[in-house]
C-alpha cells in the first residue's frame, strides 16, 4: 500500500515546532546562516507536505475529508464522564485551502525575512517566534474540535504578541503588543463562553458531532430557540477580536510596530483571517441563526467602509495597508454574513496573496529608504527601485479590483452574492461594499502615486538621497512569486458569467454544500452578474481617476479639499477618535478600578495584608513558644503536668461530651 499523506498530517504543525525549539534554545549561539537554514527548512517541509496532500485530495477517489486522531502518550487528551475531547486533526477542502495559504505564503515570507532581517539584532529570536507562529497556525486550521482550535487561536495570539513587541526596547512597540494581546483577550472571552454554551447544549466540542447534532434537531432553528444565536454571536465576538472587526479592530493598526514580514504574515495573510476561517468552519451554526448572519454581514460591511475611510487619509505607508487589511477582512465577513462562505474564503485566498505582496513590497520600499515609512517623504521611486515598483503595482491593481488581477474576481463574487442574497438589507450591504471598493481603489492608488510617482520628496532627516537601493534578491524573489500569484490567483474562481467555471467554489462544495446562497445562483441570469461586475470595475476606475487627479496631475487638490472640509478631515484623520473614546470610557475607568479597588484594596489590603497578618501571627506564636522554652527544668515539668492534665481532661470530659452528643 502506498503511503497516504494524511498519515503524515501531524508533521505539518510539528516541524515548525521543532524549528522553534532548535532556534529558540540553540539559536543564540548559532551563526545566522544556520538559523535561517533551520527556519526555512522546517517551513519548507510542511509546505511540501501540503502540496502532496493537495495533489492527493484533488485526485479522483480521494475522501472529502478525514480525521487523524493523535493520542499523545497513548491517552485521550481530555476525558471525563460524559465529556471528551480528542487531540484530533482533520483535513477537508476548507482546511486544505487554509493550509496552502499558511504554509505556502508563510514559506515565501520566511524567505523574504532572511533578507529583510539580515542586519537586525535578535535574528534567532525572530525566526524562533516565526516558526512558533507557523506551528500554532497549523494547529488552528487543522483542529477538528473547538478546543484544539482554541489552542491554536491562543497560540497565534501569543506569537503575534511576541512579534509585535519584537523591538521591545521601543516603548510604542511594547505597548502595541500589549494592546493587541488585551483586545484579543476580550474576543477570546466570547469564544470561551461560546464553548461553554456548546458543551451545555451539545455535550461535545467536536465539529463533526456538533454539526451532526445540529442537523438532527431542525426544531432548534425555530424562532423561539435562542442558544444557537447566542453561540454564533459569541463566536463572532471571538472572530471580531482575532480578525480586527468592529468593535475590536483597534489593535491591528498599532500592530504595525512589528517588523514588516510579521505584518505581512500574521497581520495580513494568515492570523487575522483566522476569524473568517472560524466563521466559515462553523457555517452550520451561523446558517441556523438568521439574526447572527445579519449581524455578521452588518459588522463586516461597517468595518469595511469605516476602515477604508480611515485608510484614505493615513500618511504612514504601513498604516494605510493595515486599515486596508481591516477593510478587506470586513469584506470577508460580509461574504460570510450573506452565506457566501466560498466567496469569503476565495477572497481570503487572493487577499493573502496580494496583501502579503503589498506589505512585503512596502517593506522593500522602507528598506530602500532606510526606515522611512511616511509617504509624505516618498515619491518618484519608480525608477529607483523598479522591481519593487512592478511587483507592488501588481498588488495595487489586484486589491483595487482591476480585471484580470486576483482581487477583481473575489471581490466581485462577494458583491454579486451580497446583491443576490435573500437578506432584506442586501441592497444596502451591496451599496456599502461598492462604495468601499471605490474607496479601496482610491487609497491604494493614492499610495501608489505618492510613493512611486511625482517628484522625489526629500526626507529632512535622511543623510543623502543617493542611498536609495533596490533590495537583495532574497527579498525580491518572494515579491515576484507573490506578484505572479496576485495576477493569476483569481483565475481559480472565474465565474461562469465570464466564461470560467468557478473552480474554487466547486472545490469547496463538500464543505459548504448546505450553504444558503447556493440556491440563488441558478435563478439569476448572467446578465445581472456582468452588469454588477461592470459597475464595480467602473467604481474602481473612478477611484483610480480621482487618485490620479489628486496626487499626480494636480498635487495640491487633495490638500485644498482637506482644508475646505477641515472638520470632516480631522475626524477621519484621527480615526473617528475611536482610540480616544475607548481610552476615556473603557481604559480609564478600568485603570481607576485597578488602581483603587485592585491595587489598594485587594492587593495592598487583602493580599499584602494577609501576608503581614500571617507573619505577625507566627511571630506571636513564636513569642509564646520562646517564653515556654525557658531553659528552666521546673517550667518544663510544669508544662508536662499541664499537658498531662489536659489529656486526662479530654479523656474524661470528651467521653462525657460524646455521650451527650
Amino acid at each position: 500500500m502506498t503511503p497516504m499523506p494524511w498519515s503524515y498530517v501531524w508533521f505539518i504543525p510539528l516541524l515548525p515546532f521543532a524549528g522553534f525549539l532548535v532556534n529558540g534554545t540553540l539559536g543564540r549561539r548559532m551563526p545566522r546562516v544556520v538559523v535561517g537554514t533551520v527556519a526555512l527548512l522546517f517551513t519548507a517541509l510542511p509546505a511540501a507536505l501540503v502540496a502532496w496532500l493537495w495533489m492527493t485530495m484533488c485526485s479522483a477517489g480521494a475522501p472529502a475529508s478525514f480525521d487523524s486522531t493523535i493520542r499523545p502518550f497513548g491517552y485521550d487528551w481530555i476525558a471525563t464522564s460524559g465529556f471528551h475531547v480528542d487531540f484530533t486533526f482533520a483535513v477537508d477542502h476548507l482546511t486544505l485551502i487554509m493550509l496552502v495559504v499558511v504554509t505556502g505564503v508563510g514559506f515565501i515570507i520566511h524567505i523574504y525575512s532572511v533578507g529583510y532581517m539580515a542586519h537586525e539584532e535578535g535574528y534567532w529570536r525572530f525566526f524562533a517566534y516565526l516558526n512558533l507562529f507557523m506551528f500554532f497556525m497549523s494547529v488552528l486550521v487543522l483542529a477538528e474540535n473547538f478546543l484544539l482550535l482554541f489552542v491554536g487561536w491562543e497560540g497565534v495570539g501569543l506569537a503575534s504578541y511576541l512579534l509585535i513587541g519584537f523591538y521591545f526596547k521601543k516603548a510604542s512597540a511594547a505597548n502595541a503588543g500589549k494592546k493587541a494581546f488585551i483586545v484579543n483577550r476580550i474576543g477570546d472571552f466570547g469564544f470561551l463562553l461560546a464553548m461553554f454554551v456548546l458543551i451545555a447544549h451539545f455535550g461535545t466540542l467536536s465539529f463533526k458531532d456538533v454539526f451532526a447534532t445540529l442537523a438532527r434537531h431542525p426544531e432548534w432553528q425555530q424562532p423561539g430557540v435562542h442558544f444557537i444565536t447566542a453561540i454564533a454571536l459569541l463566536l463572532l465576538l471571538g472572530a471580531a477580536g482575532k480578525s480586527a472587526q468592529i468593535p475590536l479592530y483597534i489593535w491591528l493598526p498599532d500592530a504595525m510596530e512589528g517588523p514588516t514580514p510579521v505584518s505581512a504574515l500574521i497581520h495580513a495573510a494568515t492570523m487575522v483571517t483566522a476569524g473568517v476561517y472560524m466563521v466559515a468552519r462553523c457555517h452550520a451554526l451561523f446558517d441556523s441563526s438568521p439574526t447572527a448572519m445579519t449581524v455578521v454581514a452588518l459588522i463586516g460591511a461597517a468595518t469595511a467602509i469605516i476602515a477604508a475611510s480611515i485608510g484614505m487619509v493615513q500618511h504612514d505607508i504601513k498604516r494605510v495597508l493595515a486599515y486596508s487589511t481591516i477593510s478587506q477582512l470586513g469584506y470577508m465577513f460580509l461574504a460570510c454574513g450573506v452565506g457566501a462562505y466560498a466567496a469569503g474564503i476565495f477572497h481570503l485566498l487572493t487577499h493573502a496573496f496580494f496583501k502579503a505582496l503589498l506589505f512585503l513590497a512596502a517593506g522593500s520600499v522602507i528598506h530602500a529608504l532606510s526606515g522611512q515609512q511616511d509617504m509624505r517623504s516618498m515619491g518618484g521611486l519608480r525608477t529607483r527601485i523598479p522591481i519593487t515598483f512592478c511587483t507592488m503595482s501588481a498588488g495595487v491593481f489586484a486589491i483595487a479590483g482591476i480585471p484580470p488581477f486576483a482581487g477583481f474576481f473575489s471581490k466581485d463574487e462577494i458583491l454579486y452574492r451580497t446583491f443576490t442574497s435573500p437578506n432584506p438589507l442586501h441592497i444596502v450591504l451591496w451599496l456599502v461594499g461598492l462604495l468601499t471598493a471605490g474607496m479601496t481603489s482610491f487609497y491604494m492608488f493614492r499610495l501608489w502615486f505618492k510613493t512611486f510617482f511625482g517628484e522625489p520628496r526629500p526626507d529632512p532627516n535622511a543623510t543623502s538621497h543617493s542611498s536609495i537601493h533596490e533590495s537583495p534578491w532574497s527579498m525580491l524573489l518572494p515579491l515576484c512569486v507573490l506578484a505572479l500569484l496576485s495576477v493569476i490567483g483569481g483565475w481559480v474562481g472565474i465565474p461562469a458569467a465570464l466564461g470560467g467555471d468557478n473552480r474554487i467554489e466547486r472545490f469547496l462544495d463538500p464543505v459548504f454544500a448546505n450553504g444558503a446562497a447556493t440556491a440563488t445562483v441558478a435563478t439569476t441570469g448572467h446578465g445581472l452578474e456582468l452588469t454588477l461586475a461592470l459597475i464595480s470595475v467602473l467604481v474602481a476606475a473612478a477611484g483610480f481617476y480621482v487618485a490620479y487627479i489628486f496626487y499626480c496631475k494636480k498635487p495640491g487638490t487633495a490638500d485644498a479639499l482637506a482644508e475646505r472640509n477641515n472638520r470632516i478631515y480631522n475626524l477621519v484623520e484621527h480615526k473617528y477618535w475611536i482610540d480616544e473614546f475607548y481610552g476615556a470610557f473603557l481604559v480609564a475607568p478600568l485603570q481607576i478600578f485597578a488602581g483603587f479597588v485592585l491595587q489598594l484594596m485587594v492587593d495592598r489590603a487583602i493580599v499584602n495584608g494577609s501576608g503581614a497578618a500571617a507573619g505577625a501571627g507566627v511571630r506571636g506564636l513564636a513569642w509564646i513558644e520562646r517564653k515556654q522554652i525557658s531553659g528552666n527544668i521546673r517550667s518544663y515539668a510544669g508544662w508536662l503536668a499541664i499537658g498531662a492534665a489536659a489529656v486526662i481532661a479530654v479523656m474524661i470530659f470528651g467521653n462525657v461530651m460524646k455521650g451527650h452528643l
Partner: protein
Amino acid sequence: MVPTAYYLILAAMLFSIGIAAFLIKRNVITIFISIELMLNAVNLTFVAFAHMWHQVSGQIFVFFVMVVAAAEAAVGLAIVLSIFRTRQTLNVDEIDLMKS
C-alpha cells in the same frame, strides 16, 4: 469495705501534692521527696485496682516500682551529696550549669 474511689481520690491528692511540691520547691532533697510521693501515689492506685479486680499483677508492679525507687534513691542521694560537696548549696536554681 472502703470503695476503690476513695483510694483513687487519695492517690490523686497525693500525686497533685507531689507535682506542686516538685514545681515549687527549690531544695533538691525536697524535690526528691516529692518525686517519691508521686511514685507512692501511683503505687496506691496500682494496689487499689489490683484489689478491685482481684488481680495480682498490679501488686507485682508495685514491687517493681519500689525496687526502681530504691535504686533511684541510692543513685539520687549520691548525686545530691557530690553536688553539695562541690557547690555548697542544694538550691536547684543555682545548679544550672554542667561545669562548675
